[in-house]
């Protein structure tokens, strides 16, 4: 996917002016966080489970080479294949070759953020292979030629009316000429259209929530069951997953599943949890005859053993974006690439470069709500700050910010000078603001006063001036 992260400020302007988006975001902000809160409250051990989930992922990351090789051994023993993809281009090439090896014309895709990361659909289309998204949200945005705006709810930026218009436009040719207004009718129509496509697909491609080293299984959760059709109907099943998805055991998967759905949607578990363990065996009634797992690195391994490793614990529940007031204001597309919200602000600079995505870790108030709900306790604000430090070290911080900081820092390290400067500023602001108590406009503070008044200090001097004047005694103004 082509990044527009460098154009973040422009994207923000468009997002804030988009009335449909703002309508959708208003619903998302209340819905997801309230359901997550209730789910967490219903489970007394939820906080302990978050600790356990964090520890499982930390252990897996500390021994990643071992568990990945173990996973590969198990998959091969089952008659499947593992393909290692150091880069996005490698993953695209491997998948395209696999598709061509069976003469595939269509690929039924269950939701996969990694496939967005490697821009798989565009690549397949260019080769004459039609990817068909089978997750309802992914299907909707595929019809609209849009990227997902949320990692678990890809079409969350759209209103029901927009979906109704999209379906009418694209399904008319299939004989659906009535504009639907009821949610259930829309789902039924999509189900009908998609069912035909499942039957025709030559290859099924899914992501994976977890790769279980102990059994060689890939594990997937959905609420629509589309993954199960994607991986059982076609002849070939390709799993596309990134390296950090591997975990040691099924027991570990059970712990992670318990925090995943609760954090994501507030469900106790997702409607469908599917384990794929190798290709169809001799006595199986159905299943793919070929089973391939493509494991992508794409820059992840370079953070192993560094302070940034914590970002690889992510289990893609979306709770951080559901609770982020910045995401809630601008939605996912403004972030400009595949992963939005707090985790996107941390991952994106790693995956496509901090020069391209430098705005993302800066566009946070560090309110900490993301960290407070993260099921694997990723210190998201700390990681964002780490990117800011990297930018500052490499002189990527905007010049005005650097200059302002340099002047302020110079004064802040010289308390006596600082007192004189603040004493002067205080008197000036108090004097000219006396009549109204605030400023509607203020030199050098345009970014503030464009939207807000600026409170003037009361007369009498700074705190330290008053304190010194009274000989360091308590005063009662």
């Amino acid at each position: 996917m082509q990044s527009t992260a460098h154009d973040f400020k422009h994207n923000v302007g468009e997002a804030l002016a988009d009335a449909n988006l703002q309508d959708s975001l208003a619903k998302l902000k209340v819905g997801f966080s309230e359901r997550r809160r209730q789910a967490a409250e219903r489970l007394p051990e939820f906080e302990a489970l978050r600790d356990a989930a964090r520890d499982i992922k930390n252990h897996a990351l500390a021994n990643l080479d071992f568990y990945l090789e173990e996973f590969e051994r198990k998959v091969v023993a089952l008659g499947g294949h593992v393909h290692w993809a150091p880069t996005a281009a490698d993953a695209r090439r491997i998948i395209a070759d696999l598709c061509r090896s069976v003469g595939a014309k269509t690929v039924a895709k269950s939701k996969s953020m990694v496939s967005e990361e490697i821009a798989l659909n565009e690549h397949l289309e260019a080769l004459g292979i039609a990817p068909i998204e089978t997750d309802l949200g992914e299907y909707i945005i595929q019809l609209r030629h849009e990227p997902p705006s949320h990692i678990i709810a890809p079409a969350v930026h759209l209103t029901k009316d927009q979906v109704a218009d999209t379906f009418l436009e694209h399904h008319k040719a299939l004989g659906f000429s009535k504009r639907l207004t009821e949610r259930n009718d829309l789902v039924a129509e999509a189900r009908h259209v998609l069912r035909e496509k499942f039957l025709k697909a030559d290859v099924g491609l899914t992501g994976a929530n977890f790769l279980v080293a102990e059994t060689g299984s890939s594990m997937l959760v959905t609420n629509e069951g589309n993954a199960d059709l994607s991986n059982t109907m076609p002849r070939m099943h390709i799993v596309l997953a990134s390296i950090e998805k591997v975990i040691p055991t099924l027991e570990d998967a059970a712990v992670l599943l318990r925090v995943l759905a609760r954090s994501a949607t507030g469900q106790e578990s997702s409607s469908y949890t599917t384990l794929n363990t190798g290709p169809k065996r001799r006595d199986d009634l159905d299943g793919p005859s070929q089973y391939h797992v493509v494991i992508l690195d794409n820059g992840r391994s370079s953070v192993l053993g560094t302070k940034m490793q914590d970002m690889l614990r992510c289990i893609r529940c979306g709770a951080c974006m559901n609770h982020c007031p910045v995401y809630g204001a601008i939605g996912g597309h403004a972030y400009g690439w595949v992963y939005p919200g707090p985790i996107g602000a941390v991952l994106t600079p790693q995956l496509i470069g901090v020069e391209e995505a430098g705005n993302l870790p800066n566009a946070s108030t560090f309110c900490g709500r993301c960290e407070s709900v993260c099921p694997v306790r990723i210190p998201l604000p700390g990681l964002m700050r780490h990117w800011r430090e990297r930018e500052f070290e490499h002189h990527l911080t905007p010049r005005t910010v650097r200059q302002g900081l340099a002047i302020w820092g110079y004064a802040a390290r010289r308390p006596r000078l600082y007192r004189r400067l603040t004493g002067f500023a205080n008197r000036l602001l108090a004097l000219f603001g006396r009549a109204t108590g605030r400023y509607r406009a203020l030199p050098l503070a345009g970014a503030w006063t464009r939207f807000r008044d600026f409170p003037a200090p009361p007369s009498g001097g700074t705190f330290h001036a008053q304190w010194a004047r009274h000989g360091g005694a308590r005063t009662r103004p």
Partner: protein
Amino acid sequence: MSSSPSVSQTRPRRVALFVTCLVDLFRPSVGFAAIKLLEDAGCAVEVPPLQVCCGQPAYNSGDRATTRAIAAQVIDAFEGFEAVVAPSGSCGGMLAHHYPGLFDDDPAMKARAEDLARRSHELVSFLVDVLGVNSVAARFDGAVTYHDSCSGLRELGVKQQPRRLLSSVKGLELKEMATPEVCCGFGGTFCVKYPEISNAMVGEKSADIARSGADTLLAGDLGCLMNMAGKLQRQGSPVRVRHVAEVLADMAGLAAVGEPETKR
């Protein structure tokens, strides 16, 4: 202020006030309110003269070297006090949680930073959790709503403490917002680096404040208060904005944030 004398004998007496740069420059009354509350609770309060700022503007902009220099200055200035108290969860959190990590490569400074971190507190939680204060002798006739500033809430666990003390203020009625824990969009330099996003966030906050039906907004951090006051006043809202310490210290006779001073 009532507090049990048995507690007071074992608790910190020599307390330093970390004024915060915003209180110093824009609202000195918050500093005096903090001193009154601490003195009423039996503390001897000092204001170390060489304090300036906690360093967050540099820290959150990625400038670690400047942050370290400022932190070292704060560590020096507040050496020897039993407790360091800030009328701000943001600055309190900086001292209590972030300073030690700045000196990972300097064990001697790290030890001093950790020592300061252990002694550092946000004002209202210090009163309640450390000093055991349960009530204040104050009167405020009005309906207030309380915004939970992010760092105080999530780094220092400031939530019930201000509400408990506010419930003892005569004449005061607390009307909660639907989402008092959602960020107001201030975020230090964030509000001027990304003014449009900040504006959207504070716009939502002001709508939530209006829906609460309160006539006064309180919080424990002046940055958030200036942001919310500025937005409310730009919108022509009648809601007045004050630091919680002013109400608890019975010093709410002063003009509210962003309001003109009346002749006294």
